[in-house]
């Protein structure tokens, strides 16, 4: 259980979610901020269903009753260079 990874970007485990709820983070938005799930390069596109299910299980409520976290633009990651009107240099 403790090694069940829910968020591949930041290695957030099922145990991390359980501990967050036990500490008093009981809203998906604050669980996001505490565990950093949803905050990696995938921005929740990969992990959201798994993390929300784990939160729902810990809270003993259906996923449909949970308020989702605030979505932030951009919808997909964008390179800084093109936004700045310059070519992106990927040589780094």
């Amino acid at each position: 259980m403790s090694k069940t990874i829910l968020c591949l970007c930041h290695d957030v485990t099922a145990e991390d979610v359980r501990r967050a709820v036990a500490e008093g983070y009981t809203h998906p938005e604050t669980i996001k901020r505490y565990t950093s799930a949803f905050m990696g390069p995938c921005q929740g596109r990969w992990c959201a269903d798994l993390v929300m299910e784990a939160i729902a299980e810990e809270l003993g409520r259906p996923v449909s009753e949970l308020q989702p976290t605030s979505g932030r633009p951009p919808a997909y990651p964008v390179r800084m260079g093109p936004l700045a009107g310059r070519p992106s240099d990927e040589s780094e």
Partner: protein
Amino acid sequence: MAVPGVTHHPLRSRYEVVIAGGGIQGIALAYELALMGVRDIAVVEARWPGAGGTGRNGEMIRSAFASEEWARLFDFSLRRWGELSAELDFNTLFTTAGYVVVATTADEVAMLRDQLPVHDRLGVRSEWLDAADLQELLPAAAPDLLTGGVLQPHAGFAHHDATLWAYARAASRRGVEIHAQAPVEAVDVADGRVRGVIVRGQRISTPVVVNATGAFAREVAAMAGVELPTQRYLLEMIVTESLKPFLRPAVASLALMSYCHQTSRGEFVGGTEFKAANAYDDVVVTLEALRDIASKFVQLFPRIAGACLIRHWSGLVDKSPDLSPVLGPSPDVEGFFLDAGWTYGFMGAPGSARLLARWIVDGQPDPVIAPFGFERFASGKLISEAATVVPTEEAVEETQRDRA
């Protein structure tokens, strides 16, 4: 409810102190008051603790400002930052990676150099860096922007949410009641004195109300009949995916009106300001700011042109006419205190909370906090702080004229 320290109990009908606003200001103040032995303190937060500017700011911390008033207040705060994790029994992730303010033009160099005698006199630790020093400190930065700078090696950044949770948990352990989803709807004033507040339709009597409502401070002050000369102002920031470490200290650039740092997870976080009137009154994000942010940071750190931006968000600050916080009693309503007008509120909170708590309990201001009182608007003794990266009123008006 949402974060540790928030109470599940209903609001009581009377408190000794009611603090409106559950951001870093309000909750740190509640903690400091409790530490001084004040009992029956309630924090009433309209949403959840940290939902406003506290969870949205750039997390950077310094005390090397140009004016004596700011340098003293923020240096006191910087010292508090070093104590917090141990004192609050919670890691705020305060990191003394350094904070450097960079000048590009001759005028900026002169302005920054002028600070150094002030810092020396006040015992504020800072050092001058020339172009070669800066290139060594910031190897990834464009050398043409690095003419000179002021470094504080013991300043840096912290985690904004962790700091709030640390204070909230410590305050609740000392008996402070933190109520979420509890907006102040009215302030009851009679015969020039605060009598209570209305929260969720319920009347609560209290002799002391503190207005720590961030971007909503003007409206909440108006409920008490106090005219607060502040204005909501939108700031926008971005974060990239995690990158190989390339930037150690926090950096503010005067020429680019920007500030940034790289987190311990490797994300590059930053925001910029531009000389434009800010027409937005809500937490929106704009393409204009996004382009400004991307172009300035690609100019400062050319290598991040290939980095992916993953989030763009905004927050609101409460801008006063001299950009300085408005702290202490309000002029005409006894018992109604202000903890408002903050644009550098995250870094200032640990210091101001302690000094404001003393002011409320003792009835007299410490000399470090006294210049930030409300009466400066009547006396005309406004604070002149030059080393901020926020557009001045003149710059904003100039742009408005240009646009018109």
